[in-house]
């Protein structure tokens, strides 16, 4: 009886350890969360936001983006200094350090999605091809959800 419960305890511990390790080991080196774009009417550019998580041991760099739904996509950061706002083109791309996350969010990093090719609606899904360095394959298709312009 004593032996049996000891075996049971070992089995439970082992199962727990396996589960824990599986939790730690993500399936993908790069995880993208909450990819969304804010709908702006009238053909003006829209902003795309997301969270990029680097689960690998290497630097990953987002270097470009394009989409059939837009004439042009650029990586920008909004900078506010002394009450003046301007956008900074991220010429060198955006680096995500190993184990770190980078958030594209309002008043900060964003994808500038220019020249929408068709009238979009809230709730639509739009695919954007993101190009990375330090990731294989280098290109990743990511679905962005169209959200209202008033969403934060």
């Amino acid at each position, binding site marked *: 009886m004593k032996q049996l419960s000891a075996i049971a305890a070992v089995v439970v511990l082992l199962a727990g350890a396996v589960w824990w390790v599986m939790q730690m080991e993500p399936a993908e080196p790069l995880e993208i969360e909450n990819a969304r774009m804010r709908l702006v009417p009238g053909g003006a550019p829209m902003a795309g936001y997301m969270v990029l998580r680097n689960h690998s041991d290497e630097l990953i760099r987002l270097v470009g983006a394009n989409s059939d739904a837009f004439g*042009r996509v650029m990586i920008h950061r909004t900078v506010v200094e002394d*009450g*003046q706002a301007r*956008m900074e083109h991220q010429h060198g791309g955006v680096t995500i350090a190993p184990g770190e996350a980078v958030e594209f969010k309002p008043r900060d990093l964003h994808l500038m999605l220019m020249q929408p090719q068709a009238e979009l609606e809230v709730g639509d899904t739009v695919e954007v091809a993101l190009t990375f360095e330090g990731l294989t394959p280098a290109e990743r298709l990511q679905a962005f959800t169209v959200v209202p312009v008033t969403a*934060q």
Partner: protein
Amino acid sequence: MTVGRLAIPVVVAALALLLSGCGEEPWYGKEITGLMPELEFELTDESGQSVTEAVFRGRPVAVYFGFTHCPDICPTTLARLTAAARRLPGELGEDLQLAFVSVDPGRDDPGQLARYTGAFSERMLGLTGNQRQLRSLTRRYRVTYGYEEPDESGDYEVSHSSAVFVFDARGEPRLMLLDSLSVQEMAHDLELLLAESSV
């Protein structure tokens, strides 16, 4: 010893002043009452009509300087402002006007402005003008705007002021709401200002 005895009341008085000073500042934004001239402009509205500040006469107005090819900070600030205006109690909220002044007339014609402002609020009026008209208005409120060199596709960036200027029903500038304020903070300031001016 004498110095010490004198110093204590001075320190106490200074502390009291400091504490009361903190308590008396009611705004999250920056108060600009008396620091800038009253609202005055000649611009074109989103229906293509020439208008002056008289278009808002008798009603308070919150003015933002931006442009429609500004996908990040402009919609973020305008959405917060609109949400704050929607939170105002009944009559106060109905009184407040919202204005979006585009400093990019090259791309923002009246039709473009109308589609853009309509996405935020029926109460938001889109305005723009020629460079002389825009310079004259922005200079009044000590803000600037500028254009960067167009890139190979002809796209260009515009720098602009990030704050919302709030004018009371008499056209007097009262508050600058910074773009860093939350919806709650903007609503608090607007409600306080509107309640005060409706007395």
